[in-house]
């Protein structure tokens, strides 16, 4: 038995890894730049001028803090010509432009030099303190305009890869630099860029692009995401899922505060569903073929096909509608004003009860219809077995036969069902929590989707999957306990 459980745990590990990989893959491919979401856009005015030194520092800080200056994964495939340090460039557009240049010319060293020259030019102070006399002259605004134009052209140049576009940018900047004599030093500097570019052209080694290369990185984004870096992130293993884009708070804190209601409703519904469906399913199997059984199984079938969100909405417009019946409140899980101060546990339960009734019904009914049907089928199978006939021949009472002999053996599928019911309940919570405005993980997921809050979405996906996996694990172990034959297979 212990062996079996151990083995089951070992299978759990690769599944867990794949799930984290999937979550990570989604987060890497999420549109938009996470750093941009983090850097406060408050000081943004003009598109180019916001690239102030301060903001660049902020970008670099967040890139480092979010671990985006690391390679993505343990292994990466690249060509011989590609640099294995390209990921260090934090601007997505620039990175792509450089990558494309490498793909064209295949000589990273030269391209790097070219890029460094542009950067040096970009950081150059076009107007030196010595020129302050000119700056206070009558041409002040015009000169500043030109400086701005040059800056913006340089930013564009950094993100361009097409030969025609680059040459065009060269011409434009050159033209701008010629406008005022005080740019002569910059002009000299700019010439070097052009030379570098020509040099890059001359020393191209495109064949290097056709030689594959594998790179290995011990420290990478996935590793950091999983295990943390000891500085900013503790890693998924220790329950750190990163920082929410919208509230800028750790995702795990938010989820922890929301997890309660989701788990409460999931467990409540599964327990209720088992309570209702076991007698129902067993009775249906025993009274097979009778009129009442046919009707009840038809009703169960119809319930099973009924969309939960329809039932929920129907219940709401009937029982939480001031025009029809106003028995229950329409949303939330507790009074809007909160619980009374100093209220004890039972008083809190009493206050929350009316809020819980409708959602509990909706949570329960779909799994209960499904469960009763499965129990009925498995009971039917058991009831046709020989040993049931033997038991009857022995003169045992019906009650004894059903509950002691038949039901025990029909238990197995009921236990495995636990593994299947749980994910559907957790998945269903997305809809029901939204309808009933329950502050749980499901409604948080929908909110995160509408806000494109990717760390939150991935955290919820990963957590729900892990919860489900644990459900499976428990079901499998219970299965082995109930039916010892399983563990010897």
């Amino acid at each position, binding site marked *: 038995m212990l062996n079996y459980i151990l083995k089951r745990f070992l299978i759990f590990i690769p*599944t867990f890894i794949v799930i984290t990989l999937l979550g990570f893959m989604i987060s890497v491919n999420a*549109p938009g730049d996470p750093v941009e979401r983090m850097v406060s856009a408050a000081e943004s005015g003009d598109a180019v001028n916001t690239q102030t030194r301060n903001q660049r520092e902020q970008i670099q800080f967040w890139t480092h803090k979010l671990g985006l200056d690391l390679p993505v994964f343990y292994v990466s*495939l690249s060509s011989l010509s590609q640099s294995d340090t390209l990921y260090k460039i934090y601007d997505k557009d620039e990175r792509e432009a450089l990558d494309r240049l490498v*793909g064209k010319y295949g000589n990273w060293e030269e391209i790097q030099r070219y890029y460094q020259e542009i950067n040096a030019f970009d950081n150059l102070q076009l107007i030196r303190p010595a020129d302050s006399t000119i700056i206070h002259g009558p041409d002040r605004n015009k000169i500043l305009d030109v400086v701005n134009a040059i800056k913006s052209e340089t930013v564009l140049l950094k993100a361009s890869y097409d030969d025609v576009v680059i040459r065009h940018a060269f011409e434009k900047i050159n033209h701008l630099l010629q406008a005022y004599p005080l740019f002569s030093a910059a002009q000299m500097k700019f010439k070097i860029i052009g030379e570098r570019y020509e040099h890059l052209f001359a020393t191209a080694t495109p064949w290097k692009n056709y030689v594959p290369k594998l790179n290995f990185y011990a420290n990478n984004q996935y590793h950091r995401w999983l295990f943390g870096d000891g500085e900013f992130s503790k890693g998924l293993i220790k329950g750190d899922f990163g920082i929410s884009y919208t509230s800028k708070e750790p995702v795990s804190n938010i989820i922890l505060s929301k997890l309660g209601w989701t788990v409460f409703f999931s467990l409540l519904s599964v327990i209720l569903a088992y309570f209702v469906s076991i007698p129902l399913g067993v009775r249906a199997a025993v009274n097979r073929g009778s009129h009442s059984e046919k009707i009840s199984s038809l009703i169960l079938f119809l319930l099973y096909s009924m969309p939960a*969100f329809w039932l929920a909405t129907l219940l709401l417009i009937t029982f939480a509608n001031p025009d029809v019946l106003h028995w229950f409140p329409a949303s939330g899980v507790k009074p809007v004003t909160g619980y009374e101060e100093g209220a004890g546990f039972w008083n809190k339960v009493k206050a929350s009860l009316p809020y819980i009734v409708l959602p509990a019904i909706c949570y329960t009914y779909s799994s209960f219809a499904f469960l009763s049907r499965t129990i009925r089928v498995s009971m039917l199978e058991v009831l046709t077995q020989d040993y049931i006939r033997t038991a009857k021949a022995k003169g045992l009472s019906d009650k004894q036969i059903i509950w002691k002999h038949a039901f025990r053996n029909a238990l197995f599928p009921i236990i495995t069902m636990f593994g299947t019911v749980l994910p559907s309940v957790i998945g269903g919570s997305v*809809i029901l929590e939204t309808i009933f405005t329950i502050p749980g993980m499901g409604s948080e997921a929908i909110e995160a989707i509408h806000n494109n809050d990717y760390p939150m*979405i991935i955290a919820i996906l990963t957590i729900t*999957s892990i919860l*489900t996996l644990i459900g499976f694990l428990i079901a499998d172990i219970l299965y082995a306990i109930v039916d010892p034959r399983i563990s010897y297979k």
Partner: protein
Amino acid sequence: MNIAQTENKNFRDAWLRFKKNRIAYYSYKMLIFLVVLALIAPFIATDMPWYCKYKGTHMFPAFSFANGCEVKDVQSGQTEKIQYDIADWKHLDAESIVFAPIPYAPSKTDYDNSDYVSPGGKQSFMTSNGKMVDMPGRFRHWLGTNKAGQDVLSGLINGTRVSLLIGFISMGIASLIGIFLGGLAGYFGNKKLHNSRGVCWSITLGIALGFYYGFFIRSYLLKDALAISNAELVKELIISLFIFTFILFLFYIVGKLLERISWMKKQVYIPVDSFVSRVIEILISMPLLILIISFSAIAKEKSLVNVMVIIGLTSWTSIARLTRAEFMRVATLDYIQSAQALGFKQRRIIFRHALPNAIAPALVAIAFGVASAILLESALSFLGVGVPADLVTWGSLLNSGREKFQAWWLVIFPGFAIFVTVTVYNLLGEGLRDALDPRLKE
């Protein structure tokens, strides 16, 4: 009697049994009705009239491919251009006009009857001279309107299309994947698919290099192609696939050559079954709705196609499981063994002999799968995730009823439509299972 005839007889028997099952047969008929309704929906629920005679010109706007025509006024000699989809047909001064049974398009708004007009309540109509009168019978909103003034009945009828399309396409994708993987896993198991060490290693290397030369190097090319057009992307993808296959083939030959070394000739078993079972286990343990929501979060734009593909890619597990079990059973049967003994090729045995017999349980899973795909789509549009906002579907109609509890017609009718469709598919699956299950055959 040869195998083919037995198979035919089995299918005929199953069909007869299916027909005898009254509930299943009615649901089958209901499904046909739904399909027909989906096909003709754009003609019976549209604001474009079937026929219109205006200033002497005959027009068939609802059936016309062109979106407009020019009408010449005989007296003044002026030409007037009528654009079919935006013309105000209900106020057109036409000589004769025949409207569709439901003279409203699903997404178009009736401003005079906006803000939740109930089916039985007062509906108003503005005549050509600007006077508000009671709604004439033929323009009535039989099932009311929503907040924007869209006709609910028209939305329901056209929503049939969306729902069935989702069911068919997503399950089409899912059954392709499910039957393929399930069949592989069931037929080959862990011990049947083997090849020489040389070929295995060579092929593995070939896949990596094929990916490198086919897709990795060309990644920016593909990206640029996508920016131009989809057709361009498909063209480039075909080139990439060609490169990939070519390299794979090359390495296969290298592997065959390597077999001359005896050490390379040793057989390696490929554990197909374990692999497929693990993938299924992983997919099952992810709550489907949350997985789909996460995927649609990274999709660039909301589109129905995305939703279909995502549902298809994630819901093939039950099909694969059933196909796998059936293939496992079939593979041990006498006729497959004798086919193997006769020296038939694997491919022939799988496609001609095993597949037709193993497909029945998959069919059952597909029917149930369609039901849950429709349910998923309506849940997604109910939540407003993944499906474009301007598309009128059953789920989005139902969602619009949530904003105003008094508008019961927005909750009852679309919900009922979803319910009926899902039930039809579930009953169909149930009936198929009963008809195809040989154990029930007396």
